[in-house]
């Protein structure tokens, strides 16, 4: 089975376990570092390409489990920018796998729309071969209006490159006068990351026993429940997923408290900053008083600037994707 979307019958024991888990909080977004395909291949004495293929099958299976239990968003680390360092043979093999799978995805349009699945490919897409850029842009365009489930595929991605790209967009925004240096906050940073349309992952799962984040969603997972699992990715089972959810439930309160505390800190800090900036803007000294109304006015203006800036960033992204979509048609025109 090599399709993305599965619709298999659920066993009664799975249904029972799900019902039990659903008495507690269920994560809305789970991220996976699908590590171990190559070690699995060598363990089974099959070639690496086969290992990656089985890894893809496991992904499709995992998506079905997530869908059944109510996890509506899944993010996976499919290809890191660091992976370009691998042998040409392996990189080409992985690109070929991507080509195959994304093309297959386009054929499953009805199934995707039936389940309301939105596909997003996150990363520095300019690093990919042109034809993959086009397929990926098409896949995103085709599913962009679906809203029941989201699958984010991190491809040509590293967290540092993502954070740096957000910093660059922000610096450009300040340079163009769209936003002020004082407008920059955690919230603005988050809205400039590739993951800006998604909530932060509730759980980060990494298979194969490695206990590192390997440059994956570093900003977004700072308050996520971490589940390091010892099995290789193609051996990941629904029981490991259930165990991850139980872990999430066990840690739920303490993590929510930390997130809430951080949120309050951010709001207070923003309020303080607005008061100070308002004072500076109205040329008032520390002793002179400013009214709540004046501060509110300033906040509104700040939010307006940020909205315009984010619109500009979004437009840049759309233009890039359109460029990818148009790219492959040119050679066809020239040959005739």
């Amino acid at each position, binding site marked *: 089975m090599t399709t993305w979307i599965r619709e298999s019958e659920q066993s009664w024991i799975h249904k029972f376990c799900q019902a039990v888990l659903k008495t507690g909080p269920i994560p809305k977004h789970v991220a996976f570092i699908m590590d171990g395909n190559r070690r699995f291949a060598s363990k089974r004495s099959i070639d690496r390409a086969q290992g990656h293929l089985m890894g893809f099958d496991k992904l499709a299976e995992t998506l079905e489990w997530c869908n059944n239990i109510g996890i509506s968003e899944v993010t996976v680390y499919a290809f890191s920018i660091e992976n370009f360092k691998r042998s040409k043979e392996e990189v080409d093999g992985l690109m070929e796998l991507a080509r195959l799978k994304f093309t297959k995805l386009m054929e499953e349009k009805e199934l995707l729309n039936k389940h309301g699945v939105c596909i997003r490919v996150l990363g520095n897409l300019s690093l990919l071969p042109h034809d993959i850029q086009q397929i990926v842009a098409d896949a995103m365009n085709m599913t962009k209006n679906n809203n029941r489930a989201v699958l984010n595929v991190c491809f040509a991605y590293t967290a540092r490159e993502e*954070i740096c790209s957000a910093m660059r967009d922000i610096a*450009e925004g300040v340079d163009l006068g769209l936003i002020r240096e004082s407008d920059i906050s955690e919230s603005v940073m988050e809205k400039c990351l590739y993951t800006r349309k998604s909530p932060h992952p509730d759980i980060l799962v990494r298979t194969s026993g490695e206990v590192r*984040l390997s440059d994956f969603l*570093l900003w977004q997972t700072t308050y996520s429940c971490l589940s390091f699992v010892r099995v290789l990715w193609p051996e990941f089972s629904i029981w490991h997923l259930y165990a991850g959810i139980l872990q999430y439930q066990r840690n739920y309160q303490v993590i929510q408290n930390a997130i809430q505390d951080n949120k309050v800190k951010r709001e207070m800090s923003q309020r303080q900053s607005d008061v100070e900036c308002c004072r500076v803007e109205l040329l008032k000294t520390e002793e002179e008083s400013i009214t709540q109304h004046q501060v509110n006015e300033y906040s509104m203006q700040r939010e307006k600037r940020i909205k315009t800036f984010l619109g500009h960033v979004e437009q840049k992204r759309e233009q890039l994707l359109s460029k990818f979509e148009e790219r492959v048609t040119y050679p066809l025109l020239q040959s005739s």
Partner: protein
Amino acid sequence: MNVLWICSWIKHVAKPWAPFKGRDVQSYDSKSLKRLPIHLGVIILEDNISYIDIANIIIWCMTLGISYISVYDRKGVIRQNQKHLAEEIHKRKEELYKKRRESFNINVYNGLYDSSKYTGPSSSNSSDVQLLSEEDGQLSLVQVAKEISKSVKEKRWKVEDVSLQNVENYLLEKSRFPDPDLVIKFGAAECLMGFLPWQIRLTEFFVSPSHRGLSYKTFLSLLQDYGNTRQRFGK
């Protein structure tokens, strides 16, 4: 019977004179470790903080040859009680000097961007410690984004200069500490609670239930486990 009683009395009286629980730091221990972290991070998730145990960890790191140590608690309680920690570290340094006639230097800095951080080469008898909290995580990256934006606005940097290489170098220069190779998380919660998101790109994470009453034996065995792991770096 008398001999036994005398022995237990001696043991009871000798307790305050024994600074390290159980086995003491031996100089051959660092040679027994295949790989030593250059920068060790410690995340304390427990509410009840023991400065004696944190001081122990710092001293053990220093005698094993670990040059950089980070100590983190989300709310910054340790940062606020830097003086108390400094006192405990001082006590242990004195005990160590009495025992081994070696003098060590431990510099304790408050926060990731503490401007008093020493910039010269590290020496074998000195370790640098930075006390961190949540503000050194996402908020510090926001701070850097502001500084970089200012540089671009003031034409010191071009927008194209905001490259990964330049941002990495900028952050390393500002914090003066390399990225942590190993982080030990103490406490039950399975979450990093805001710890240095940028710097933990390739960090290995080990866990231990509690920092309170941590024995040297347990600490050493964690480092031995670290020495036995191997990274592939994406290849």
